[in-house]
């Protein structure tokens, strides 16, 4: 378990276009130099944002990784939920899941309309090998 280096890799990836290009060209090779377990490497290569969240990656770091992979926001959040359901509670870090009725129900309780774009969500519910083009 080397959560620090998982987050370090993502930190550098998030802010460096050249690192993103290298990762897109060869994901496994881009991980060289980071002290990562096989499980962590697989999660970063696949990518499996649900597993990464379960491992304890800070959501503020992870959300950029989701955006890089063009994972639509609601889909991204669902993948986090799926990761917790599949792997269990967050192993370490500052995050816990406290329970939430969801944006639609919450907005309705406030008398607000909900405009979640389900068409967009469906069209961007990507298979896990899809990559964004460019940085």
């Amino acid at each position, binding site marked *: 378990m080397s959560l620090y280096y998982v987050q370090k890799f993502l930190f550098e990836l998030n802010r460096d276009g050249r690192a993103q290009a290298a990762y897109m060209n060869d994901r496994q090779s881009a991980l060289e130099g980071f002290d990562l377990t096989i499980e962590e490497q697989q999660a970063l290569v696949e990518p499996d944002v649900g597993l990464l969240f379960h491992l304890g990656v800070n959501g503020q770091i992870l959300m950029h990784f989701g955006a890089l992979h063009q994972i639509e926001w609601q889909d991204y959040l669902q993948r986090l939920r799926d990761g917790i359901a599949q792997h269990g509670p967050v192993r370490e870090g500052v995050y816990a899941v406290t329970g939430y009725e969801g944006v639609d129900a919450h907005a309705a309780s406030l008398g607000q309309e*909900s405009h979640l774009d389900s068409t967009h969500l469906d069209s961007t519910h990507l298979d896990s090998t899809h990559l964004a083009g460019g940085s």
Partner: protein
Amino acid sequence: MPLVFAGVCSHAPGITGRAEQADPRAKDDLYAAFDDMRLRLEATRPDALVVVGAEHFANFFMNNMPSFAIGMADYYDGPIEEQSFLGIAKQRVPGNRNLSERLIRQAMHTADVSYAEEWKFDHGIMVPLHFLTPRYDLPIVPVNINCQGPPLTPLHRSWAFGKALREAADSVPERVAIVGTGGISHWPATPDSGKINEPWDRQFLDEWSRCDKQALLSYDDAQAYADAGQGAFEIRTFIAVSAATEGHVGVVHHYEPIPIFSVGCVTATVDLKSAGTVPSVTT
């Protein structure tokens, strides 16, 4: 010279990135509130805007995490996020290295400050600038308080830092404005994203508007996390602005929880001509 403007506002990426998914009335009301805040800022004719933010690992990481950092460059680039995610095109934002250095030198007398000659803005600064300086023509002095990577900056040190910022602004001839941007309650980028504790927010804003130092510094991270999510750690930015304007009351111009934006959206300013700690009315 004394601060010419002070305020606080929200910065969640959904405010610009998921605007079309929000209730149009709620979104329009928030955008109008931001525009009102912009007009109030512009009316004070500032030479520079100090933005006290809670950046999200765009520059600072756990290999060398400063409790406080101030930018010291003539320009900054941002956002690090793609336009398709944030709804804001990449910009080169003006800074003022000379002014930053003078502010930093003064602040260092009473606060342990790191400085940064390069700084990539993330949504934490870009969303407020998108509304408050939409032409990107006002020099920015970015400031960061570690609200993300524990161990976090203690609240009372955030207050002391705010006092140091005030003393620094007072020491320069430029007309300096300050805006703090953060939380309040929210669970951003988690499965609970969208959850907002409105009563908690309103209590905090009431304490902030009264510049109630004792109440503001009584928050405990563990309890705040339980009640208001990890996004509530960002109250440090609001506390710093309170300290920088101690003795003056705040006015909350707008507050509304907007779940698709993942935060209770707020705009507020400090009445720098006021004295005492009279409660203000929140909307």
